[in-house]
Structures are given as C-alpha cells and as structure tokens.
C-alpha cells in the first residue's frame, strides 16, 4: 500500500443521504451486486449516467459511509495498467440503501396499483 493510499479511516455510523431519482439509480446499480466490487466505468454503463453525475454521487455516498472504496490489488506490470479504485456497499449502507429505495418506490407509486415486485437485492 502506497503512502497516498493510506487514509485516516474512522469507523462511524452511516449518515443519511438525500436520495433523489439519480442517486437511486446509482444505489440500484450498487445493489445489483450488494457485496460486489463496483468500478466507475461499470457503474456508468449500468446506470447510464455520465462521469460528471456519477462521481459526485459516489463521493457523497462515500462521505456518508454508505459505500467504501479501496484500491484494486493487482500487479500493474502484469496487468499493464495502474490499479483502479472500486466501491462497495458497507453493511450500514446496504441497509440504508434498501430502505431508501423502498421509500422512494413507495413515494412515487400510485396508491391503487399493487406494489412493484422487489428487485433482487434491491428492496427489503
């Protein structure tokens, strides 16, 4: 681990995030693989969001401890590229994300229609 990669990480509870529809898209992209590692470009392709929209949302989610980021553990020589940074949901973030998506879904659904079927890993 390089000196620049060492961060002062203090464990604390996740904080609430204002979940807009765009943020929900990112959360849904992350929840497609709740325990997996997500890279920026893969999330951009999955959510159809541009880098200028996606990265600020990721930064907000990371600042609120919903997700955490780590540097990829690869041999740059063998891979012929620098290591990338990936994001994954924290346990708190997972719970918050599911709750937020469920709330958003309930808020925008019509009252006389049956609830939408839950997305795998998406809603509680």
């Amino acid at each position: 681990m390089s000196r620049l990669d060492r961060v002062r990480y203090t464990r604390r509870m996740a904080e609430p995030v204002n979940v807009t529809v765009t943020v929900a898209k990112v959360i849904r992209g992350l929840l497609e693989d709740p325990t997996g590692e997500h890279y920026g470009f893969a999330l951009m392709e999955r959510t159809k969001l541009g880098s200028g929209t996606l990265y600020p949302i990721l930064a907000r989610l990371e600042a609120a401890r919903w997700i955490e980021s780590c540097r990829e553990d690869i041999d740059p020589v063998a891979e012929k590229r620098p290591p990338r940074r990936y994001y994954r949901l924290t346990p708190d973030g997972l719970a918050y994300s599911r709750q937020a998506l469920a709330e958003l879904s309930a808020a925008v659904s019509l009252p006389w229609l049956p609830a939408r079927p839950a997305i795998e890993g998406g809603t509680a």
Partner: protein
Amino acid sequence: MIHNWTATSTHIWTAGVAIGSFLAALLLAVLALAFWSFKEAAGGLIAKEAEGRLERLPHALLVLAARRLPADLQAPLYEEWFAELCHRLRRNDGLPITRAVVGIKYALGLLVGAHKVGEALANTGLRTPTTPRRSQATYTKWLFRYARVFLSTAELIQRDEWRRDAVRRLHKEIEGDA
C-alpha cells in the same frame, strides 16, 4: 538523285516530338511519384500527430478537472480517474477516434463535476494522504508531477513497452516526491 530534305526534316521533327513527349511523360510520372510519396509521408505524419494529440487530450482535461479539487485531494483523485480511463481506453485499442470520444466524454464530465466531488470529500479524511499538510504550491507541483508520470505510463502502455524497470522508475518518482 534529289534528296527530299522536307521528308527528312519531317522525320526528325516527328522523332524529336516523340522523344520529347516520352521525356515529358517520364518527368510527369517521376513528379507524380514524388508528390504521392510526399503526400503519403506527410499524411501519415499528420495523422500520427493528430492521433497523439487526441490521445493526450483526455489526460489534459483530467488534469484540469483535478485542478478544481481541494489541493490535498488532487493527486489521489487524479490517480483514480486516470486508472479508470486507462482501463476503459484499452477496450478500444486500435480505434483512435472512439478512444478520443470515450476519453474526452469521460474527462469533460469530470471537469464539470469535479468541484462537487471535492465538496463531498473535503474534510472527511477520505483519500487524503497521511503525510503532513503541505502548501498549495506543493500540492499543485504534485499534481503536475503525477500528470507527467502517468502520461509517461500511458504512453508506455500505448507502445506496449510496459516494462518492470520503467514502472519501478515511475513509482519511485511518485514515492520520492510524496
């Protein structure tokens, strides 16, 4: 015997015209060949130059995007974005225009959204090196050094000359400065 000078001169004239035409055609062919060779060489050089410039443009935009971040976040986030860009561009090897479009789109987005990333991550302790705080000028120097080192890395990748010693030298340069 009466010599027909008129006929002889006509023959000479006709032969002269034929030789002259042949030489002119030969000269034209040589000139055309030279022009074509020059055009091909110049065209190749211009295309190569344009490709090189296009290749560097996304990286230059990334540097500009990083400059919009708080000083201590510039180098770590530039590194992250650069690595992502390299990975994405490798999927389009041999397609310079596609590479440029993908890279420029990615970098322009970050140029627009960089300040929001900076606002979100500022004072969180995330991505901040544990080294003592430095002056703004030092951080800016870091960023430019990072950019230079990573551009060299990108060129090594592009030329498929990614060698262990070159990587070690580049990393040593970063570590030495950090």
